[in-house]
């Protein structure tokens, strides 16, 4: 409950409400960050392998969606793989079995993930803190077992050879470059949407709930409604991230709904900085890059991820972006 000493995002990067400052709710430092991000998106496919950058962007969006809950409502979901994976499965199935266009398939994936989020959130928000984490984990495990058995997921094989299709009949997405711009647009739209949500009056109420839920209740806010809405938005965006990933790689498998995926998104956000705008993006970049380079090391990747978890919790709780923001005395 109202744990005044320290909450999980209790670090120097806490935002203060300063209306009238900055542009579109971005502070100057954040605006600079957004410009750097857009410049990176424009240059990256020419410098780096586009498929790698697309993977990075999908996970970055996933982590941003997760951060919406932990960073701004203070709810640690340990089961976000359910929404990510379900988005991937639905989109994959729609694109492959029904021949749905990519935009429609991704929307379907996001909507089903949102629907699942309504159910999961409705159950999970009855408890707080550690219980919330355990409940979301257990519900996600239920979704995992459902996916193991359901006929449309293809069981152990997953859904393979998902066609990328063509974007509104204009651009054929089977080329990596076309798919890259499509993915980058989805990521940027999701990133800006989350920023917009946080800086809306709705987002201010979420932060109030994070700071002191009984007080927000006493001010007349139905906090459960707000928490559920945030959960559904987060689930939907996680679903969109999974949906995009399934089109990029053409596969949706049990890995996407497994609990270790839920752990990975927690790790990405923790490494980047909980409750920062850019932290999840940087964290996703670090973890995806690490997995790419260490792929041949097998189970040691798990060990290294565990070590990073431990190191972050014990000594590095602000995360990369949080540390930089603290050092520069700005909010990022």
């Amino acid at each position: 409950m109202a744990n005044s000493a320290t909450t999980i995002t209790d670090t120097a990067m806490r935002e203060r409400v300063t209306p009238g400052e900055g542009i579109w709710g971005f502070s100057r430092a954040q605006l600079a960050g957004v410009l750097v991000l857009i410049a990176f998106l424009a240059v990256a496919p020419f410098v780096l392998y586009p498929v790698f950058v697309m993977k990075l962007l999908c996970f970055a969006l996933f982590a941003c969606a997760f951060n919406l809950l932990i960073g701004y409502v203070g709810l640690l979901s340990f089961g976000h793989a359910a929404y990510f994976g379900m988005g991937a499965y639905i989109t994959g199935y729609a694109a492959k079995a029904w021949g749905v266009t990519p935009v429609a398939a991704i929307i379907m994936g996001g909507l089903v993930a949102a629907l699942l989020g309504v159910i999961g959130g409705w159950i999970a928000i009855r408890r707080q803190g550690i219980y919330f984490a355990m409940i979301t984990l257990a519900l996600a495990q239920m979704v995992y077992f459902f996916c193991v058995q359901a006929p449309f997921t293809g069981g152990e094989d997953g859904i393979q050879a998902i066609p990328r299709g063509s974007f509104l009949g204009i651009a054929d997405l089977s080329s990596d470059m076309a798919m890259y711009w499509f993915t980058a647009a989805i990521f940027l739209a999701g990133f800006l949407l989350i920023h917009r949500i946080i800086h809306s009056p709705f987002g201010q109420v979420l932060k109030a709930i994070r700071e002191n839920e009984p007080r927000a209740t006493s001010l007349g806010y139905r906090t459960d409604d707000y928490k559920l809405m945030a959960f559904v938005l987060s689930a939907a965006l996680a679903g969109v991230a999974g949906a995009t990933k399934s089109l990029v790689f053409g596969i949706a498998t049990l890995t996407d709904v497994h609990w270790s995926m839920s752990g990975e998104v927690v790790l990405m956000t923790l490494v980047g900085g909980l409750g920062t705008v850019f932290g999840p993006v940087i964290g996703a970049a670090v973890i995806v890059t690490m997995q790419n380079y260490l792929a041949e090391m097998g189970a040691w990747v798990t060990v290294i991820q565990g070590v990073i978890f431990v190191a972050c919790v014990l000594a590095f709780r602000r995360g990369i972006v949080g540390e930089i923001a603290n050092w520069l005395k700005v909010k990022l």
Partner: protein
Amino acid sequence: MDEIFGIPAPLLFGQLLLGLINGAFYAMLSLGLAVIFGLLNIINFTHGAQFMMGAFAAWMLLEYLGIGYWWALLLAPIIVGITGVILERLMISRLYKLDHLYGLLLTFGLALIIEGIFRNQFGSSGMPYRIPPELAGAWDLGFMFLPVYRGWGVIAALVLCLATWLLIEKTRLGAYLRAATENAALVQAFGVNVPRMVTLTYGAGVALAAIGGVLAAPIYSVNPQMGTNLIIVVFAVVVIGGMGSILGSIITGFGLGIIEGLTKVFWPEASATVIFVIMAIVLLARPAGLFGRA
């Protein structure tokens, strides 16, 4: 007596027994989680990995040192308990002043490390552990064959659970423990060394998980993933029972094991998810859990 509700009796009783065994492990693990949570205020995600370490300790004792089951039942929990004490002193104790979620994240990371190391060392296929000769064979109960080891597993787990309950509810040490759960600062003011008690409690909770691992070794194959899959179910069990009551954890654990076993008979497809469904229903009806305090 051949069929009950149109189900062959041996199948029904066989699954019921399997349910009881699983329930015994649910009970032991959720009991350990509840004791640790009561005093340390962290959810020990490493619990599943420590259960697995118990099974591996028994396997290694036999394989490398030729030490058999009965000694392993004593030594494995001590060894794993000591590693738990070290973890608590070095890492977990640094987090008590922080948000409880950090404890969950730290122990999750530790679980990844432990599981990864064991997977590197032993692969993920799993190793068999022989049932000790004293407990091999089966009893003919007339309506079914009861493998002796499985009967022993259930009884041993039940005895351990009840002993833990007695220790906490009926002894002076348990009274200190309960008092420290309520108000650690006050108990410390009375001259009890609370930090040492916290460390030993963590060690004891971990040792309980390790005994579970040793008991499980001859039943399941000893493999690095055996704990993690179990611990997620145990989390659901803990949410259903609520962590307020020791006896409640025991009853919930065994009860859910039996329900899961029966589901395997009547609706096999739902057996993997039935506990999670029950968790959802309990949360909707009684958010604090069956035995929990709000």
